[in-house]
């Protein structure tokens, strides 16, 4: 059954061990190396060769207990054995163990045999005992803790858990049995009484699984610390908080510590506890109180115990840790550590700390932080050499090229349907399918994003259709596209007064909780019963309690919560949640870094630095001209009735010192109009307006100048838009909402689009449309034509000069204007298979109108290449991305650049075009390299989604046929939970699809975009934890030199920083 049992110190010295069969290799060493040192102690068991190992720590004594058995066996009693042996051993030999100045002999063989026999016997006697339904609270607790994140179905609760928490009772019983048999201990009064009641108290457990009776369980009180230890080490319940009113009481709280000092030598006393249905709070108080008393009793003198208290030597308990670790976990998740990993890590820290003594004047927080720091350091410290150059030298001495294979995920997922417009850096828009490598796109931070590569593919597409309040038409994208949504519902309470049978009236609290792990919003509720004999005497009090509770919910998704969610996940949210999600328009785009060109142009024209009002004036004039000027002439036509406009033209041109000639002119429709020509007869005074139009490059096109699109908002964009609207727009009022309808004088669709874009960039909604006949403010009916409709909160900010076209804040509809937020509802419609176009950019992926996540295989390959070249190595790049169009060209550009950069470095590209078998190309490249004495071969592979099986198979094939020296995964520092999934699936694929005896795995990672994440460095931790492999480099920018070694200390600092 059992193969061996070892008790050793953390220092590695075996104190006692017993083997039952011959042990070939030493699985204990592997256990320590693979699990315990790697901070995976949060796990439960470890399989090595044919053994299954389980272990437990006794941290207060720095001991590890390891039991091993054949993995094919299902030994359900191992935990019990470990726990019992631990308690007994620590109890019996405490003094010897503490004395670390010498090696001691531990006479434990007989005792161990007895314990083992005893437990085995019990196990074989009745599966009755083991398979009896566990007390409800135990299984429940187990579900919450040991299994952690893994979800147990409800059914599991009734089954015996595979890994049960052993009750203190059982251990107590085991040890008592041992004493009975060996007859070593003299029995006291308490003991006798005990044995009787043991049987009694067990009866309900065996005979019935009725919850009520189970809860009446009796507790045994043990000789002080040791029983405490056992209980603590066994009870890994994270938090006892259970919203359920019927929540079971934690047995630990019920132990009356008052009794502890009175019993020596392991005698124990049973107490029947009767009803446990009292309130939690009460028991906690009770527990605290008695704890104090016992301290005093033990200390004898209160002064002494006072010093004892402040100078520490307090043992850390599970309860002490729970809140601190919960906070720590949250903190780590905030730093972008994958949620699972944060939980594992905290479990592991807990296991290492429980039972340890805290030194003087140290808080639990700092102890946890310190312990976490050590754990992090262990995880992040590489366990193999990361000296790539040394590896290469090795290969050189064997006269073979060193091969590095770069793999990674790609962003094919986050692409748009044909026709989706993307904002370019120069303010123009382009369709996504027209984008090319090298184009510059506007990023969300007003800086440019250069397109690194483009891609296209086929997939199920979704159409996001805004309701009519929304902007533009709709856009299409695939299911990976990330929607940025505003959640619009908050928590609320509801009265449920009508008593249903057997239930008293209650206040119900509903709230939405953001599940950080799954990136999902879920609705939750809680009941506050009131009435005589209930939790709350009166309705008002219950209500207040509910409202108080409302604020306390963690991860509350209240209104204004911003949710970034891929469409595929969004569609799995409940209808109610979906309905409460709104799309919203980010604030107006400011373009800090590029603006100011208009100012410079005007400066040149005027010869002096223009004032703000001069700039506005000029902008407005340009706006007016764009709508009703004459092509190639600095002339504006204004209807003679437009007095206000004429007046302002006069005022503004005086401000700018531009002279003009005013002529009356009869139009065909018999209206007279004024032609205002900014020309002067003196030749020596230059015509400012003409030059402005020339400089803006619009004299012959009359378009909205692209430069303007990204200019200063208040001085340029708004006045210009106002100018256009003053002369060509109409103000509409529809049920209290204002909007401008702009319709250009000539049929000019391009102008409609341009004005629409300008308005959108300036903080308004705007969409171009075929307007049906509409009533305007001034009772003019405009005919159906192509026009743009501008609406939004800030229409009053537009400095229109025509008074009846102005929107005033102090208008009677004031309120409505302010309340209208820039949000709108939308629909997601599956439109079936379609093609999508995507692109990759440098820096962060938040380009305007898009939100992509992609990787940068080739870029990082080139950076690595640059570094290798600098070290005088001869490099061959194998273009094995035969899948994504543009990949080879991209590499060619890199190779050209690299060759130009280094003086006498050689880098060559090995390519065979597209569509061919990547594995074959890599193979050819390697033999070519061997022949031509290249030192290093860098293999660029296509980025692929971890779920794409055919592509993953292809990758595995490439790896298994070429057996590269290093497989480097290029990942993004921005990924959160996704990191774990990506890496495990890549490793899994390399293992499953390789067909090799010793399959390969990822040997190291490169983390890109490290400069964009601040201190949210969690991905570094997630990735090293998942693979156990080091992060070789981090990418910190876009140039070839922006590749750095990761510094473990820096990561730890960033992770733990508040």
């Amino acid at each position: 059954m059992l193969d061996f049992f070892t008790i050793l110190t953390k220092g590695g010295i075996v104190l006692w061990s017993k083997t039952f069969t011959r042990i070939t290799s030493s699985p204990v060493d592997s256990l320590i190396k693979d699990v315990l040192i790697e901070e995976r102690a949060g796990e439960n068991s470890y399989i090595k060769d044919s053994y299954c190992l389980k272990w437990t720590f006794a941290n207060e004594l720095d001991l590890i207990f390891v039991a091993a058995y054949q993995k094919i066996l299902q030994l359900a009693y191992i935990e019990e054995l470990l726990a019992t042996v631990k308690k007994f051993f620590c109890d019996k030999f405490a003094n010897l163990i503490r004395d670390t100045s010498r090696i001691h002999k531990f006479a434990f063989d007989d005792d161990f045999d007895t314990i083992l026999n005893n437990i085995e016997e019990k196990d074989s006697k009745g599966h009755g005992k083991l398979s009896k339904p566990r007390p409800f609270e135990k299984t429940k607790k187990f579900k919450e803790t040991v299994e952690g994140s893994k979800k147990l179905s409800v059914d599991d609760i009734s089954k015996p858990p595979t890994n049960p928490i052993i009750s203190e009772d059982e251990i107590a019983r085991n040890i008592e049995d041992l004493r009975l048999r060996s007859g070593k201990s003299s029995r006291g009064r308490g003991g006798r009484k005990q044995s009787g009641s043991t049987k009694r108290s067990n009866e309900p457990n065996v005979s019935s699984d009725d919850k009520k009776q189970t809860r009446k369980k009796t507790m045994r009180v043990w000789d002080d610390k040791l029983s405490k230890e056992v209980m603590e080490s066994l009870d890994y319940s994270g938090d006892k908080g259970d919203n359920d009113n019927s929540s079971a009481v934690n047995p630990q709280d019920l132990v009356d510590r008052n009794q502890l000092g009175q019993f020596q030598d392991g005698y124990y006393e049973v107490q029947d506890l009767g009803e446990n249905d009292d309130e939690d709070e009460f028991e906690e108080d009770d527990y605290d109180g008695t704890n104090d008393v016992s301290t005093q009793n033990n200390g004898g003198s209160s002064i002494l115990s006072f010093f004892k208290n402040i100078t520490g030597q307090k043992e850390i308990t599970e309860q002490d840790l729970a809140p601190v670790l919960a906070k720590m976990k949250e903190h780590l998740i905030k730093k972008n550590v994958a949620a699972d990993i944060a939980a594992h890590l905290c479990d592991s820290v807990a296991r290492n700390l429980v039972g340890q003594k805290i030194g003087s004047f140290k808080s639990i927080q700092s102890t946890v932080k310190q312990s976490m720091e050590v754990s992090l350091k262990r995880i992040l410290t590489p366990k193999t050499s990361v000296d790539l150059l040394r590896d290469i030298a090795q290969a050189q001495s064997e006269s073979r090229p060193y091969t590095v294979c770069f793999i990674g995920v790609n962003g094919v997922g986050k692409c748009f349907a044909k026709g989706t417009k993307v904002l370019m850096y120069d303010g123009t828009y382009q369709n996504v399918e027209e984008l090319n490598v090298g184009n510059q796109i506007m990023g969300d931070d007003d800086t440019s994003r250069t397109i690194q590569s483009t891609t296209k593919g086929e997939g199920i597409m979704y159409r996001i259709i805004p309701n009519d309040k929304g902007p533009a038409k709709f856009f299409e994208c695939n299911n990976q596209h990330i929607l940025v949504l505003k959640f619009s519902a908050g928590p609320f309470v509801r009265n449920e007064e009508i008593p249903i049978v057997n239930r008293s009236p209650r206040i119900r609290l509903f709230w939405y909780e953001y599940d950080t792990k799954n990136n999902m919003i879920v609705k939750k509720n809680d009941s506050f019963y009131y009435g005589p004999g209930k939790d709350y005497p009166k309705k008002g009090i219950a209500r207040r309690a509910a409202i108080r509770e409302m604020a306390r919910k963690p991860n509350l998704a209240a209104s204004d919560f911003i949710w970034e969610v891929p469409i595929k996940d969004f569609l799995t949210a409940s209808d109610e949640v979906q309905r409460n999600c709104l799309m919203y328009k980010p604030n107006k785009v400011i373009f800090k870094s590029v603006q100011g060109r208009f100012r410079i142009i005007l400066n040149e024209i005027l010869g002096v630095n223009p004032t703000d009002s001069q700039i506005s004036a000029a902008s407005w004039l340009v706006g007016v001209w764009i709508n009703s000027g004459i092509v190639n002439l600095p002339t504006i036509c204004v209807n003679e009735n437009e007095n206000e406009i004429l007046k302002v033209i006069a005022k503004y041109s005086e401000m700018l010192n531009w002279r003009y000639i005013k002529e009356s002119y009869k139009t065909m429709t018999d209206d007279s109009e004024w032609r205002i020509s900014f020309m002067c007869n003196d030749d020596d005074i230059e015509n400012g307006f003409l030059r402005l139009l020339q400089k803006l490059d619009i004299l012959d096109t009359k378009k909205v100048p692209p430069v303007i699109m990204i200019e200063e908002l208040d001085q340029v964009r708004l006045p210009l838009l106002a100018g256009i609207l003053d002369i060509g727009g109409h103000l509409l009022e529809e049920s209290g909402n204002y909007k401008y309808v702009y319709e250009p004088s000539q049929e000019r669709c391009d102008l409609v689009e341009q004005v629409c874009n300008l308005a959108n960039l300036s903080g308004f909604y705007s969409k171009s449309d075929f307007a049906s006949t509409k009533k305007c403010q001034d009772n003019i009916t405009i005919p159906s034509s192509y026009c743009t409709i501008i609406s939004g909160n800030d229409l009053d900010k537009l400095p229109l000069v025509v008074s009846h076209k102005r929107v005033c804040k102090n208008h009677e509809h004031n309120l409505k204007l302010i309340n209208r937020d820039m949000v709108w509802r939308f629909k997601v419609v599956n439109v079936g298979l379609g093609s999508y176009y995507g692109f990759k950019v440098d820096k962060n992926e938040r380009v305007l109108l898009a939100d992509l996540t992609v990787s940068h295989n080739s870029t990082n390959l080139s950076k690595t290449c640059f570094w290798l070249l600098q070290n005088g190595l001869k490099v061959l790049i194998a273009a094995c991305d035969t899948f994504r169009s543009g990949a080879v060209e991209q590499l060619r550009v890199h190779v050209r650049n690299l060759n130009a950069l280094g003086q006498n470095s050689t880098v060559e590209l090995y390519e065979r075009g597209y569509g061919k078998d990547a594995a074959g190309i890599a193979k050819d490249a390697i033999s070519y390299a061997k022949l031509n004495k290249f030192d290093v071969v860098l293999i660029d592979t296509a980025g692929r989604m971890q779920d794409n099986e055919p592509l993953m198979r292809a990758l595995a094939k490439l790896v298994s046929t070429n057996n590269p020296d290093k497989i480097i995964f290029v990942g993004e520092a921005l990924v959160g939970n996704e990191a774990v999934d990506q890496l495990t699936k890549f490793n899994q694929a390399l293992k499953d699809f390789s067909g090799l005896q010793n399959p390969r795995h990822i040997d190291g990672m490169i983390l890109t975009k490290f400069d964009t994440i601040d201190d949210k460095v969690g991905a570094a931790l997630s990735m090293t934890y998942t693979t156990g492999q080091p992060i070789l480099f981090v990418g910190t920018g876009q140039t070839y030199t922006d590749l750095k070694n990761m510094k473990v200390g820096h990561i730890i600092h960033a992770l733990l920083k508040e």
Partner: protein
Amino acid sequence: MDNSTFTLITWIILTILAIIIAIIFNVLKNRSRKDTFLILGLADSGKTSFFIKLRDGKQVQTHTSMKENEGYINLENNGIPLTKVPIHFVDVPGHEKLRFKFSDFIPITRGIIFLVDSSTCVKNVRSIAEYLYDIFSNKDVIKHNIPTLIACNKSDMITALPPERIQTMLENEINKLRNTRTSALDNQDSSITDNIEFLGYENEKFKFEHLENETHFEKCSVDKNEIAEIKNWIAEVYGGR
């Protein structure tokens, strides 16, 4: 009444003083003396076995260490004490993820005993050299010229190499390493410029004798209790302060 309050205050003051003195004493004791010997080396080189052998003269079963073993040991050779006072030894785990701890002890270190498993030396030469490189390029090791004994353990095994061979192997390897290390990429946080130390003389092949600090090679076997040379070396280094 007054009297008792007064006594109480006196007591409190005295207690506080006592605590302060104790703390200062502790600090001084820990800080000012540099008389610890570190036992370093790769995993499985026999550090823990050596430590126990030194302390108890016994052979014990060991597993990979997760934590340091430390203690004060009375050095003696065949019952003859080698030093007057017990010496503090620390056995630092050799696992790659744990060995960074050695640098915490360097400030109080008098000498380093670096154990090498002579029987697996060929296979591990790179790891050994890397560890040695880390030790020798440690700022404090350089500053205090901490003497180092490279003890080639497990000489009882038939596959064991003689110390001379091990020395040349390591010198060759360190020679390569100092080239690759110094041309590695910069650290990501460039504000802390911890340049990697170049060991030995430039333009000359690396030799242990080029190092500022004394290094010795010695053969030993913990199994066969052939550790007398090491003991003598320790006593010498300890005595010659």
